[in-house]
């Protein structure tokens, strides 16, 4: 056990260091990319602020003057790093509100949605994957394969509107869009979750098939464990490893990749905010968001690491 805690401490230290490196790299890379974008930043920011009815060259010049966009890039980068060192992410160039405030609200909603989506996907993928994994190449397995392919090929927005049509408009079970309550979370979560489950149920299935065919499974059965005990104690435990890793990767995509579902369901998430920030050249907002997502990713990785270590003793030795 002491060995286990020692290894956990090592992981924590490594991830802490990684967090610092990630913040610096993400900050600099996103800054560099924003600088590399073609087009005049003042025009884009003015466009993001004033809309096409009010935006013109005069507005762009006013923005340029106000924000000091003429300053050389290293002055701007230094300014941002200086602010960051004081834990200040600055103000949104487009909306004028503090970046921290915007991220705080939107990240909360994004995490809620990502969590809902993973829960929904596991609710589908685990039973389906285990059932098909225990009966590979059965009719059920093939049907699930076909369904997975179909659901993977349907874009999230189409799936979203179909779910809304069925469950919100026809059956009136859930609201269409917005974020007034927990009932608003169901449809977007399942829209995302179904897409995720289309892949992850196959990952679960393959992992279960592998675990069922393994030496220790045979050994466990030979040594007289019941089929049920073998399944819960050995097969699922071993199958869990690739699944946990995979879910970790999916989560990382999810938190920022949900922009489509956020847009369809009018959900105030961070992916949506990031897209708008990039279009509007809202450098402060892009950097703040990228930084937050980067750190979140490190935290997520830490959880996956610890979970893997908890599941598989071999991982601890490595």
């Amino acid at each position: 056990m002491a060995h286990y805690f020692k290894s956990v401490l090592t992981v924590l230290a490594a991830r802490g260091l990684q967090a610092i490196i990630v913040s610096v790299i993400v900050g600099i890379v996103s800054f560099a990319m924003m600088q590399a974008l073609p087009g005049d930043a003042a025009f884009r920011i003015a466009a993001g602020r004033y809309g096409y009815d009010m935006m013109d060259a005069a507005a762009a010049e006013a923005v340029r003057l106000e924000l000091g966009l003429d300053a050389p890039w290293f002055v701007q980068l230094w300014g941002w790093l200086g602010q960051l060192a004081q834990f200040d992410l600055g103000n949104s160039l487009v909306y004028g509100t503090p970046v921290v405030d915007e991220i705080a609200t939107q990240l909360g909603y994004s995490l809620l949605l990502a969590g809902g989506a993973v829960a929904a996907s596991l609710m589908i993928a685990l039973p389906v994957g285990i059932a098909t994994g225990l009966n590979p190449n059965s009719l059920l397995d093939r049907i699930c394969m076909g369904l997975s392919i179909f659901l993977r090929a349907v874009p999230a927005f189409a799936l979203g509107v179909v779910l809304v049509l069925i469950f919100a408009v026809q059956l009136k079970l859930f609201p269409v869009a917005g974020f007034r309550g927990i009932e608003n979370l169901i449809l977007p979560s399942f829209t995302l979750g179904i897409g995720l489950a289309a892949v992850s149920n196959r990952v679960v299935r393959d992992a279960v098939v592998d675990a069922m065919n393994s030496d220790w499974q045979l050994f466990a059965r030979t040594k007289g464990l019941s089929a049920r005990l073998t399944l819960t104690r050995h097969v699922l435990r071993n199958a869990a490893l690739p699944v946990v890793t995979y879910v970790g990767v999916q989560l990382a995509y999810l938190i920022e990749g949900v922009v489509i579902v956020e847009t369809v369901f009018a959900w105030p998430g961070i992916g949506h905010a990031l897209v708008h920030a990039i279009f509007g050249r809202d450098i402060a907002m892009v950097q703040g968001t990228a930084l937050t997502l980067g750190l979140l990713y490190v935290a997520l990785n830490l959880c996956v690491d610890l979970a893997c270590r908890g599941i598989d003793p071999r991982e601890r030795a490595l």
Partner: protein
Amino acid sequence: MQQTNAIQSPHAQTRLPKQPIAKVLGFGLVTGLAIAAIGGPDLIGVDPAKQSLLATLSPPSLTHPLGTDHLGRDMAARLLSGAQLSLSLALLSVLTAGLPGTILGVTSAWFGGWTDRLLGAFADAVLAMPGLLLVLMLAAIAPGSWWALYAGISLTLWVEYFRYTRQRARIILADPSVEASRLLGLGPWLLVRRHLIPEIGPGLLTIAAFGAATAVTAVAALGFVNVGVRPPTAEWGVMMTELLPYWREAPFLILQPVACLVITVLALHLSVGGLRRS
């Protein structure tokens, strides 16, 4: 040979029953798609960009076997034109993401130690950069360029292969049967062939078959946030986005590019299954 067989891990021994029908179907579909992609709209001799604003959203008919889209363009011609772009780009993104991802994953697991740590840190750094940011930035740096779009998509997708391979390979290489093979002095290539490919291959191929779909739906997703749309380009993902507004009036239209994508993934999957078993 005798010896290696005796200590071979049991996974490779599980022979699945051969399914010639699925295999033939898979290769048949792949051939069909390849012909469609190479021939393009010339196969039916209809201009995919020709509009008819007075005959929009029309159902299938003799003149337009698959109907017309929201600008009165022939759907069949557009799907064929889309096959050229979508299939070549899907293939490209699977290769550019899958090959480096897998090779780096095996390398990482094989050498362990600092190599593993460095590669792992690199993958983490890439993943820590929001993928959306990378894709959108690359798309913005070269507006209207499909290559930039796909470079961005590959850049975010390779990590999936890397992490999967690394995770699995680590466990396999720690397996007693593999250690035994190593002790017997078998070369690395044999190890890869005997143990890694049969163990990791199926999972990787599943990821790759789905990866092709991911690439096309990613283009649809980008089209949804208004990136990469340049009329009159026909690409399956873009068509899905363009036809979404008409999903109530003419649901058969948006289903067509989706169906094309389903057929593609199915074809890949069946022929991959065939390859795996032969």
